[in-house]
C-alpha cells in the first residue's frame, strides 16, 4: 500500500490532455499548495435535503403531483448558430478581461498560474466555462462545478476565440440527441465507458485519494458532449474515432432520459441502490415495527 501524494497536479482541473508537452510540467510545478475546498458545506446540506425530500415523496406519493415537467421535456441544447468573426472578437475581449491573467495573452499559459490553452479546442473551453469550473475560484482549489460566470452566448464566444487561436476539438453544433432508436446502444456504451466512474444512475463516485467523478445531474447535452470530447481533469478523452459522434449523441440521449425518467416503483431513494435500501429497512421498516411491538406489548 502506498499513500497518496502523487496527485498534486490533478486538481486544477484544466490540464488539457491535448496540449504542448512542456507546459503542463510548468503548470504542475506551480500547483504545489492544495487547499481543502471550503465550498462544500452547501453540497452536504443539499444532499441532506435531497434525502429529506425523497422521504417526503415517499410519504406523499399519492397526493403530490410534482411539477417539474420542464425537466422531462427533451432539453433542446443551446441554440447553435454559426459564430461570426464578431463573436470571436467579443470572445477575445472576454478572454482578455477574465482569463488572460492565468492563461496568458496568446493562450500560452502563465507559469505558476495556468496551463497553455493552445490546442485544447473550443470544446474543452466550453465545458470548463459553462460548468463554472473556469474561471477557477482560486489557485490550487479543487475545481468543482459552480454557477457559471458567463452566459451561454459569452461562453460560446470565449470558446470560439480559444478555438480560433489554438485549434483543437470543436464545440459541436446542432441537435445532440441523435436518433431515439439508438437510446439502448447509448445505454450499453454508457455502462461500458461511463458507469464505472459516474455510476449507473449518473450519481458520480469518489476516485483515489479525494478526487471525485462528478454527478451528471446538472450536465446539459452540450456539457456532456464536450466533456467526452475533451476529457476534463482526470476524465479520459473519448475521441470521435473511438466513440463516434452518433454514439456520443446516443449516450447523451440515454443519460438525459435516465435523469428525466420517473421511477415506476415509488420513491427512488436517490437511486443509490442497496445502501439506501438497507438504511431504509433499518430505520423506517424496523422503526415502524418497533413502535408496533411496543404498542402491542404495552399493558392495557
Amino acid at each position, binding site marked *: 500500500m502506498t499513500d497518496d501524494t502523487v496527485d498534486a497536479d490533478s486538481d486544477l482541473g484544466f490540464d488539457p490532455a491535448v496540449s504542448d508537452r512542456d507546459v503542463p510540467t510548468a503548470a504542475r510545478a506551480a500547483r504545489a499548495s492544495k487547499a481543502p475546498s471550503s465550498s462544500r458545506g452547501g453540497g452536504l446540506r443539499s444532499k441532506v435535503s435531497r434525502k429529506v425530500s425523497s422521504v417526503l415523496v415517499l410519504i406523499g406519493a399519492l397526493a403530490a403531483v410534482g411539477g417539474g415537467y420542464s425537466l422531462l421535456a427533451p432539453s433542446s441544447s443551446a441554440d447553435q448558430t454559426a459564430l461570426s468573426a464578431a463573436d470571436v472578437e467579443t470572445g477575445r475581449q472576454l478572454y482578455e478581461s477574465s482569463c488572460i491573467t492565468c492563461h496568458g495573452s496568446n493562450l500560452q499559459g502563465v507559469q505558476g498560474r495556468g496551463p497553455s490553452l493552445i490546442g485544447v479546442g473550443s470544446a474543452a473551453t466550453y465545458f470548463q466555462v459553462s460548468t463554472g469550473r473556469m474561471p477557477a475560484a482560486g489557485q490550487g482549489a479543487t475545481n468543482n462545478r459552480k454557477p457559471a460566470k458567463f452566459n451561454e452566448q459569452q461562453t460560446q464566444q470565449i470558446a470560439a476565440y480559444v478555438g480560433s487561436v489554438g485549434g483543437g476539438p470543436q464545440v459541436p453544433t446542432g441537435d445532440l440527441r441523435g436518433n431515439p432508436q439508438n437510446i439502448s446502444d447509448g*445505454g450499453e456504451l454508457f455502462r461500458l465507458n461511463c458507469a464505472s466512474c459516474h455510476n*449507473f444512475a449518473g*450519481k458520480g463516485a*469518489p476516485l483515489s485519494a*479525494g478526487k471525485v467523478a462528478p454527478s451528471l445531474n446538472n450536465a446539459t447535452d452540450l456539457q456532456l458532449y464536450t466533456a467526452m470530447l475533451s476529457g476534463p481533469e482526470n476524465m479520459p478523452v473519448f475521441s470521435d474515432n473511438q466513440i463516434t459522434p452518433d454514439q456520443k449523441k446516443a449516450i447523451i440521449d440515454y443519460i438525459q432520459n435516465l435523469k428525466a425518467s420517473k421511477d415506476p416503483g415509488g420513491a427512488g431513494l436517490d437511486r443509490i*441502490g442497496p*445502501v439506501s435500501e438497507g438504511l431504509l429497512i433499518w430505520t423506517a421498516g*424496523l422503526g415502524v415495527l418497533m413502535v408496533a411491538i411496543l404498542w402491542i406489548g404495552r399493558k392495557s
Partner: protein
Amino acid sequence: MTTLNEAPTVKGARRFDKPRTPQGKAGKFFEERLGLAGGLRKQLNKVFPDHWSFMMGEIALYSFIILILTGTFLTFFFDASMAEVRYDGSYVPLQGVEMSRAYASTLHISFDVRGGLILRQIHHWAALLFMAAMTIHMFRVFFTGAFRKPRELNWLIGLGLITLGLVEGFAGYSLPDDLLSGTGLRIAEAIMQSIPVIGTWVAFLAFGGKFPGTEIIGRLYIVHVLLVPGILAGLIGAHMALLIKQKHTEFPGPGKSEHTVSGERMYPTYAAKAGGFFFIVFAVCAALGGLAQINPIWLYGPYNTAQVSAGSQPDFYIGFLDGSTRLFPSWEIRLWHHTIPALFWPTIVLPGILFTLAGAYPFLEAKLTKDRAKHHLLQRPRDVPVRTGLGAMAITFYGVLLLSGGNDLIAKAFDISLNAMTWAGRIGMLLAPPLAYVIAYKACIGLQRHDREVLEHGIETGIIKRLPNGEFIEIHQPLGAVDDHGHGLLEYAGTPVPKKMNKLGNPQTARVKGFFRPVREKAEIEAELAALEQAEAERAASQRELTD
C-alpha cells in the same frame, strides 16, 4: 380468582355424544376420528409472556411467510435461464439489448406483468426485513441471556437460520442477472477460487466451468426456491417446536419464578395479538414495496463481464463481508508455486471465525462462569456487564465492517478521501470494539449502581427540606420497608426499579375512556360500575391482608 358470569347460564346439561350446535357436531366428528381434544386444549391454554422485546422473532417468522407468498407469485413469471435474447419489452432504454432470459423475464415482471413490480418489491423488502429482524432478535436473545441452558440448541438453530438467510438472500438477488448482482457473482466466484487447494475445483463445480458459464443462474434458482427455503422451513419448525417444548423465557419480577411462565394464554388473546401483528408486518412490507423502489435492475442494465458501475454494493446483510474485503490489507501468501489469495482471509476465514464464536458462545460462557444450571428467567443487560460488553464489541466490529462496505458512498456524500475512509475503517475495526466494550461495561455498572441506590435510599422526590440546623436535604420516597437508619430493605433482584414518583404505579387506574372527552355512561350504569369497583377494591384489600 374471579369469574365473570357469577350465575352460570346453564340451559341444559352439555353432552358430548348428543351435540346440538353445528360447532358441537363438527367437534364430535373430528374428535371421533382424530382424538385431539386433550392435546389441542393444552396448546390453546399455553401461556406466552407478554413483553415487547419477545416479538422481534415474530417479525422474522412473518417475513418468511410473506417471502413464500410473494416468491410463489414471482416463480410464475421468472425464467432462470442464461440463454441470450434480445429484449423487446416496454422498457425502451433496453429495447434491442442482448441479455439473459433471466434478466429479460425480470424486466418483464417489472414492466409488463400487471402488479409484478410491487410483488417483486414486496419480496425484496421482506427479504431485507427477514434478515434485519433475525439480527435484532439475535441481539435480544444474546443481551438477555436467553441462550443459556437449556436453550443452547435453539441458539445454534437460530444461527443456522441467519447463515442460511445470507445464502438465500445472495442467491435471490443474484437471480435477475443484472449488472450489480453479476458483479456480486463475479466476486463470489473469486472467493470460491481463493480457497486453498480445492478453490478452483469448487468454483468450476459451482459455475460449471469458467466464469460466467451458462449454469449458475439455473442452479441458484433451485437453491433459492427449493433447497434453502426447504431447510429454512424445517429449521424454523424446529426452532418453534423447541420454543413450545421449553416454553418462553421471561423477565424476572414479582411473582415470576424459574418454575412457571406467566402471561396470556395462547387462545384467544395471544393468538389475536400475534395474528394482528402478522398483518401489521405485511402492511409494512407492502407499503415499502409500493412506496419505495428497491433493486431497480433496469437502471443497472444486464450483466456484462466488461462492465461495472461505481458504487456497487451487495444487500446490507452481505455488506459486512464487502467491508471486510475492502479493509483487509493485501496480504497474499505465495509458497512453492502456490498462492493463498488475500481474498481468502476476509471472506472465508473471518466469517468462519465470527460464526464459530457466536455458536460457541453459550458453551464458552457456561464454562467460564461455571454456570451449569437451567435458566428460564432472563437477565437485564446491565446485570451481566461482561456479556453486554462483549455484545457491544461484536456489534461495533460488525458495524465498522458494514459501514466500510459503503465507504465509497460515504466518501462521496461527505467529501472524504476514499483512502482516508479505508484507513479509518482499518483502524476503527481494531480500536472501536474494545472501546465499545469499555463503554458498555461502565454503563452497565453505572445503571446497576443507580438501581441499588434507589433501592437503598428511595426515589428522589424533588422536595427539598431545610433542617433546623440549616442543612438542605432532598426527601426520598423509600420503595419498601426501611431499617432503623432509613435504608431500604429490598434486595437487588435484577428487576426494573422505578426511578420517578409517577412510575410507582397506582393499583387502581382511573377508568377514563374516550379520545377527546371522557365517555359518560348513563347514571344507573355509572352507579353499577362504581359499586363493582368498590367491591373489587375491597376484595383486593382483603386478599392483601390474607397474604401479609
